[in-house]
């Protein structure tokens, strides 16, 4: 049995960041990279399934990214993934989530997992698209925003709840193999132990190229993407009226706002 998990090393912005000269992204030196928060939960969900299964389960993480993502892949290995695959080719640069999904689907076709997990979205570009587009290329059943899951590896179906807006859940049964996008809070991701971090550092990361997956340059990058970044810019900040002064003065003003409101409300 095998569960494949699509992961991404995301970027957050340093304070006082700058936009690149071509105006289409933030300058590299202002990006702070880490494993996508959602992926931490989907990995944990797979590792939990592996730990409670009576049959052996292999947990494989895959990322379509340059070498710098090895850091996040090692984090996954330290937290319980058995293998890590990274696919890269210069042509992948500039790929939108649909082009990335095309590559992930090719990996899934060669790995033949029983289930594929992805995060609901990535914290940096928040498309909420990669997992479900991967399912389309595989022709697999799919569901988004899964907040609880009942699945035994190798089973023909799984039951899950998707988290809807406004505090509502929807319980659904789905045929397997399937692609599920996993929501925050589905479990409590573990911390990696020092020992497992050391062990992960020694594990290999399998690097594949587009050619290894029988993909071509036209499948990825701008030609394979369904949208293209035209311009990135810093928006005008909202007009929050700043309450100045020390903590005592700020609290005074806050108290005044609260009292005014209560006066209105009374």
């Amino acid at each position, binding site marked *: 049995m095998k569960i494949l998990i699509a992961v991404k090393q995301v970027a957050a*912005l340093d304070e006082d*960041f700058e*936009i690149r000269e071509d105006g289409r992204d*933030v300058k590299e030196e202002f990006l702070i990279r880490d494993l996508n928060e959602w992926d931490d939960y989907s990995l944990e969900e797979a590792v939990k399934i592996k730990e409670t299964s009576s049959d052996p389960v292999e947990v494989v993480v895959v990322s379509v990214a340059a070498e710098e993502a090895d850091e996040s892949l090692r984090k996954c290995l330290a937290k319980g993934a058995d293998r890590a695959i990274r696919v890269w080719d210069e042509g992948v640069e500039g790929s939108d989530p*649909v082009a990335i*999904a095309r590559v992930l689907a090719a990996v899934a076709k060669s790995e033949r997992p029983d289930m594929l997990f992805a995060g*609901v979205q990535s914290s*940096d*570009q*928040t*498309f*909420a*698209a990669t997992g*479900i*587009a991967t399912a*389309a290329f595989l022709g697999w*059943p799919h569901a*988004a925003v899964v907040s609880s899951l009942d699945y035994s590896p190798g089973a023909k179906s799984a*039951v899950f*709840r*998707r*988290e*809807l*807006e*406004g*505090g*509502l*859940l*929807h*319980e*659904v*049964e789905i*045929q397997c193999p399937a692609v599920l996008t996993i929501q*925050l*809070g589905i479990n*409590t991701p573990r911390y990696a132990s020092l020992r497992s971090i050391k062990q992960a550092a020694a594990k290999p990361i399998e690097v594949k190229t587009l050619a290894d997956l029988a993909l071509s340059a036209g499948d990825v990058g701008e030609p394979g993407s*369904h*949208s*293209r*970044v*035209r311009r*990135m810019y*810093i*928006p005008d900040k*909202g007009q*929050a*009226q*700043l*309450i100045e002064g020390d*903590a005592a003065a*700020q*609290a*005074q*003003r806050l*108290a005044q*706002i*609260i009292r005014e*409101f*209560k006066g209105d*409300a009374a």
Partner: protein
Amino acid sequence: MSGVLVIAEQRRGELRPVSLELISAAQELQSAEGQRSAEGLRSAEGDTVTVAIIASSPHLFLDSLKLAGVDEIIAVKVAAAEFDPDTFEAAVGALIAERKPDVVLVAHSVDSFGYAAALAAKLNLGFATDVFKAGRVDGALVATRGGYGQKVNVEVDFPGRDTVLLAIRANVFKPPEQAAAPKITEFAAPATASRSSGREFIELSSNDDVDMAAAEFILTIGRGIGEEANVAQFKELADAVGATLGCSRPIADAGWLPKSRQVGQSGKTASACKLYIAMGVSGAIQHLAGMKHVATIVAVNSDAGASIFGVAKYGVVGDIFEIAEELRRLF
């Protein structure tokens, strides 16, 4: 190829409010189209806004969709009583094949997360999600979305795509109010063998008796409180100032407060809230979207760059513990 196709969203017999917002978004695009036709680039008759409602009883929703700016409503009857990705992919795919719209608008919602990307991948559609602005630049469709935790705006375009699917952020466009009498058409959806089936809906409940939907004054805590032991201090502060204590997603996920206290898009809708004080909440877009209707938002955060300052009326940049302590003394 012409016009804008809007896919309305319904759940459990009710039209979701975002459906009407999509109509306004479509109208804005249409007026951008109009400018194009004025320049002689296309005929005006193609600039239509068509709204499709996909449901087991689509007729129940027709009256609420008869709004100014809608040229035609398509009633699409399907077997599935509630949202199912295979049903929607097939129905919207068939609509696109028949109507060949330039632009298809869906809500950036949990339902569309489940099928829009698959449809874009299969039908080779231009595609962008969480779009809060769309228009034409030199005749080409340009959509604007956020990036890096809303710290930047990202403009995307769709070179070479005949049809573009956009998932529109909720609570951005104002729903149209004026009624109209658009043409009504029936559309036979293709039969679908769904590979998943909905069983039941479950309302979020807890043994906590708080009613976030009725609360007018909410004090919310976020990641900034650091650890569970600090929750008590803010609970006490909320009680003292007469506020209902709420929390952002990470606090509920960690189990520090019950899920029923979570506010934001996936949490309880704080629909009656008028004064909202957010302490240590950076403001994920889902959280902000769920609180946008509140008249007075006050954000207290040590990070001056936190996204929540973009929607707040008042901002306090400072240490939340110090400010909480000072504030407590005043009540």
